[in-house]
């Protein structure tokens, strides 16, 4: 388990990560989403032991991570721009990584290269961006570490490859208990794969929950109220995050389970109402809007 307690990191006068507390459970896929500049990469670099927090603690299985070989040996970090040695090919990377990671699986490495049609003798610098990402993922998976940290790793992969890699992740999770930690802007991708999601905004955590719980606790409602008075009553009874009205049709996002929302609506006089599940993207927009990250401001201001 990876635990972050009141973790902060400052660059000059700017707090990139401010007092963040999170828990990343073993065997789960943890998705880290956030607005631009929210501190996702900084947070991951601290989890990977690259950066030392200015405040708080990052523990991997109860061991402090910074400059601690015992903790970092269980982590492999795939940055958004992976590095390969100048003029190195797949074989060179394999030779190097197996001196670093005790459990590096060379056989699996070459198998994956073959499956992904990556020539082990070809210079990695001649690969496309997507192929280099594939190479980085293969290196990460074959290092056989308990935790695999992926920063924007899926961006740049084609849909087929994304699905393939998701399947490989699932296999590793099942076979050896891999815990992937994935940061991405592509919420649709995370929605498919993540068990838990942490939402960052301006260096702080807005929420960190089980994705299913998250989805169950926020609902989209489309309805037509009989009178304006009924609409006001609904606003008082429900924890509305967002509300939009076009003609008589009112669209709202409100906290609460489907049952709770439905119970509330039974007491209201409506012409029509419907409770719909929210996509992760819609949850992201709603939650960030609450803390002032309003897309409408960007579009209409």
């Amino acid at each position, binding site marked *: 388990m990876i635990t972050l307690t009141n973790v902060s990191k400052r*660059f*000059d006068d700017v707090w990139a990560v401010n007092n963040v507390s999170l828990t990343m459970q073993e065997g789960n896929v943890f998705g880290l989403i956030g607005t631009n500049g929210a501190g996702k990469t900084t947070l991951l*670099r601290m989890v*990977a*032991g*690259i*950066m*030392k927090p200015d405040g708080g603690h990052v523990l991997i299985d109860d061991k402090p991570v910074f*400059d*601690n*070989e*015992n903790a*970092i*040996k269980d*982590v*492999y*970090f795939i*940055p958004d*721009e*992976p*590095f390969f*040695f100048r003029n190195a090919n797949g074989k060179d990377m394999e*030779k*190097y990584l*197996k*001196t*670093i*990671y*005790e459990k590096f699986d060379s056989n699996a490495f070459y198998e994956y290269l073959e499956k992904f049609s990556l020539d082990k003798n070809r210079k990695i610098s001649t690969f496309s961006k997507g192929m280099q990402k594939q190479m980085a993922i293969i290196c990460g998976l074959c290092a056989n570490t308990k935790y695999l940290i992926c920063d924007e790793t899926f961006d740049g992969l084609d849909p087929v490859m994304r699905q393939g890699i998701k399947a490989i992740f699932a296999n590793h999770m099942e076979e050896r208990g891999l815990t992937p930690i994935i940061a991405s802007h592509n919420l649709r991708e995370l929605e498919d794969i993540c068990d838990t999601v942490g939402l960052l905004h301006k260096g702080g955590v807005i929420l960190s929950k089980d994705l299913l719980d998250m989805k169950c606790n926020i609902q989209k409602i489309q309805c037509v109220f009989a009178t304006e008075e009924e609409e006001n009553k609904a606003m008082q009874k429900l924890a509305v995050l967002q509300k939009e009205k076009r003609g008589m049709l009112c669209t709202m996002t409100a906290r609460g389970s489907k049952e709770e929302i439905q119970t509330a609506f039974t007491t209201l006089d409506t012409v029509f109402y419907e409770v719909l599940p929210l996509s992760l993207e819609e949850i992201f927009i709603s939650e960030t809007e609450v803390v002032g990250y309003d897309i409408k401001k960007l579009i209409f201001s």
Partner: protein
Amino acid sequence: MTLKNSFLADVYENMKRRNWVFWLSFLTFLCYFPGYLMLSLNNIRSRYEGVTDSASLIRMQERMDETVEVLFLLNGFMPVLIIGLAILIGMQGFAYLHNKRQVDFYHSQPVSRKRRFTVLWLNGIMIFVVTYLINMVLGMAVATVFGCMSGVIFTGAIKAFFLYLLLFLGIYHIAIIAILLTGNTLVSLLAMGVLLGYELAARAMNVFMATSFFITYGSGEEEKIFDTLFSPIVNIYKYIILGGREYNYSQYANENYTYGNTALGLFVLAFVFGVVSFFLYQKRASESHGNSISFPKIKEVLRFMLLVLMGSFGTYLIYYVAGENVAMGLAGAVFFVALGHAVIQLIYEVDFRAICKKWLTATISLVTVILVFLGFKYDWTGYDQRIPKQSQVESVYVSLAAEGFTNSNYVMMDGTEIYHQYKARRMEITDLDIIYKLLENRERISMNTRTFDGTYETIDVNFRLKNGKTDYRRFYLRYEENLGLLDEIYHMEEYQLANNQVMEEDFVENYRIVSATYNNGSGNGATPIDADMQALVEAYKKDVENVSYTEVYYNYPKAQISLMGIGIMNEEYRNSWNILIYDSYKNTIALLEESGIDVEHVFDESFINSIQKIEVRLDDYKLLTPSATEQVSYLDTYKTAIYTNPEVYEKIMENAVPSTNRWWPNRNRSDNDGYSIYIYTPNPYNASDYYMDEVYFQTGEMPQFIIDDLEKIPFGEEVIIK
């Protein structure tokens, strides 16, 4: 080969990434050792091709041996090569810290910082050591083929290698520190320049200011520029230049710059810089890449240090360019501090708009620069008025006027030094009461109040303090009022022994004096002295013991004797000691006359008889500065009497001093009462031409009839007196 997760595996893998540096270093030493050696030795051999006489063959072998010796032992070029390689190897090993992708890659691996540093550090050293030693051995093989290899060269080469290794480590660690303190390569290079040169530049600045503003600042103080605490480069060059002889001939040791001292100094620096680089590596934040300075806390300290140095330089420069104008100097301070601040801001922030920000440190620096400048200029610390307390002084060295250069090299049993160095190192006067009594009478002048009225003369004093430091001073003294004290100093044994090496016991035996020549400066050249050397030196010593400083001060020497000794270390090396003979040296003069040398007559009869004419000119340059309405031509500033009567020549030449004697020590040497006396003798090769010699008279010894004759001649005229 697969080395699984071990330190050696890390070393091996890292070395794979540093191939190009390895091969570059290898090629450098390949060219230096076997390459250069083979070409040079071959070249020497080919130049002597076909030569069969043994003397030439010996010379050829000597030249080849010399080439091998210079190459393998210490020389001035090798440190340059090593400094370059150390910077390159250091930067290549640690420059990954300036690249985010590489930092993410390496620092996310389960390798502790200590271990990663050790791997990178060790590989850098291995690159140097392996490539140096392989090529040194190859070079030795080449030397062996040419028959120039010896055990001495081997031992010397190993000793040189260890010294070079320490130099490499020092510079290598400085390069690593520069990388660690900064966030990009360009700033690293600047930082390296600062780390390598700041102390030297600051010391030079201090010396420039002190030399310019303190009148008592002694010339020996200037050498303190090189008393650096943190410069491996100065350490090695001091040894090569000042102590290098010891390396080739262990007997020629300069006690301050021995191999052991130099190695220890370099080791301490390498060790300290090594510890600092290790510490900084542990503390450096991974996210520092791209920043100018990795440790924000040192930014302002660095800015202050650089601005003070740059501002001081600017102030000094403008002050002088503007004709020692203080106001302009201060304006220079403002300009240079502002300029320096702008440049530093640009480096720090990489943004032109930033040059107008963060003025606090710049302001503090400016105030410091101004205070330092004014402090020097107006001697706020009272440097010129202060001398070390007598209780703090161990011994002193003094150098008096009229005692100086005699073209001698003074040989020491362990090396050769020129006169001043010898004196400075050997003279340890401990009877400080006399010295301090004399210094009490010194002129209390400062650079701002100085007036050179011709009545001051200098006395150089080096105070050796009990705390091991030295303080070189130049004081101003009216000698004529202090001759009693000066005589006392002159007769001190410590003074005489250091001032005149011939006064040493067993001088003739120790320095193998085999011959002597006599020279009175008349142009007759040196005459061999047919006398027993021991007797000559003993007579001279007796005379020196009886002579007073007052006599030396007031009189021209009569002649100079050159004593020739065979080199202590090898027969080829000869050394000469020039000693001066004064009128009162009765014993020496008697011995010289016994040997057939006419000491009394400087100019012999044949020379006097050959004189064609004597021209005496009296200059009065004051006539050159009349008011604007009284323009005087240069020709009107002197008058000339020309003597053509051979009968008066002998009278004139009786007390004349040859022009070459003018360079011998004597306070009156430039004082000829305004007269110029030219002697014309025929040129034996061209009947229509003359040789012209100049002679001098000691003050007050100009024949009266010449003075009377010139009295009658108006300025601007030339009169022939028959």
